[in-house]
């Protein structure tokens, strides 16, 4: 059983931030989220990236859709629970209108999740994305981050659909020393 304390993995946050930059993201729309806080802090410090704090995931995705249509390279940063609140915008703007944007979310409820209260995210996040035929991938090893995030953005642009990159517990957290 996991009984130790966990803290944010700052090194991995930096690697993921660098990968976001490499993918060309220049506009981030974010909503309240605990696990990706250190990534967000780096993004907010970057003067080349415009950031908007949306009031909810669906609103964030609609803003990203408009920004993408207008030539920005946007990314929505959110918790995995946000897929459940965004089916409408994903299906309408993403699938019907073929507007496209990158989504990055924590994946509470994924591999190694001890919090029972995250069971809904396990049950909804990946199944919803699969049901909607929205491409998605989970970063299981940090050395895959740059490749997966860069390729995900190319998929967004080439296939003209939203794509999601999921970040599980072992990527965002590490055991406290």
């Amino acid at each position, binding site marked *: 059983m996991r009984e130790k304390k966990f803290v944010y993995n700052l090194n991995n946050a930096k690697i993921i931030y660098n990968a976001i930059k490499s993918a060309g993201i220049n*506009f981030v729309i974010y909503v309240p989220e605990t696990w990706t806080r250190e990534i967000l802090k780096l993004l907010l410090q970057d003067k080349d990236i415009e950031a908007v704090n949306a009031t909810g995931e669906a*609103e964030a995705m609609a*803003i990203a859709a408009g920004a993408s*249509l207008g030539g920005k390279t*946007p990314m929505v940063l959110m918790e995995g629970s946000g897929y459940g609140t965004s089916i409408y915008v994903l299906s309408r703007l993403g699938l019907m209108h073929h507007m496209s944007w990158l989504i990055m979310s924590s994946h509470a409820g994924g591999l190694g999740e001890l919090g029972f209260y995250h069971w809904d995210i396990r049950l909804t996040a990946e199944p919803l994305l699969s049901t909607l035929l929205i491409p998605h991938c989970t970063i299981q090893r940090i050395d895959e981050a740059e490749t997966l995030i860069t390729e995900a953005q190319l998929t967004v642009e080439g296939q003209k659909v939203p794509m999601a990159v999921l970040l599980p517990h072992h990527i965002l957290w590490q055991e406290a020393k």
Partner: protein
Amino acid sequence: MTHFEAVQTIAHRLTNELVVVSVGYTNLELHSVKDRKLNLYAIQMSLATPVAFGLAKAIPSRKVISLDGDGSLLMGLGILSTIATHPAKNLVIVLLDNGCYAACGWYSTGSGRGSDLAGIASAAGIPHVRTVATPQDLASAFDELLGKDEPGFIRAKVESGPQSTVLDQLPLDRLESTFRFRQGLVEEGLVGHWREARLDHYTSPR
């Protein structure tokens, strides 16, 4: 002021603005008066103003108009706070407020029961908010707010009840509308062409 008169008033004043339209009869009306590539039609309820805001952020050199409805805006009021706190200086929201869900059978929205959406926009922090009830006042407010360097919000109070004018269905589906709008942005020099894979992306040693 009828709904159609309000749309006609806005349409006749459009020059090169980008227009994002919510669902419903507004689309048929705008299409009948002034169809253009720079109209993005039929964006679903609650989504038109957020899409317009994202577009305005991406293209700050061009004015962006959200033609929204009261029922639609009420589904996502949070966007007013987002716009107010991350201002897009080139965004004007024109709220066609008939106080009812026109496409669903004319029953009242919260606005029809007394909620003041202009008051909510103002309280959210939108700097320029106007309420108008005649085509003349709408034209005046539209011209005034287009000239501002901050976000604007016009609550255009329009009559409830079925429109007297019967218009043809929109001849574009959602996908055609989106791609046509994108092509319009390309032709205006506002965005580049979509990135596409080309044969010369794949090379092999001779």
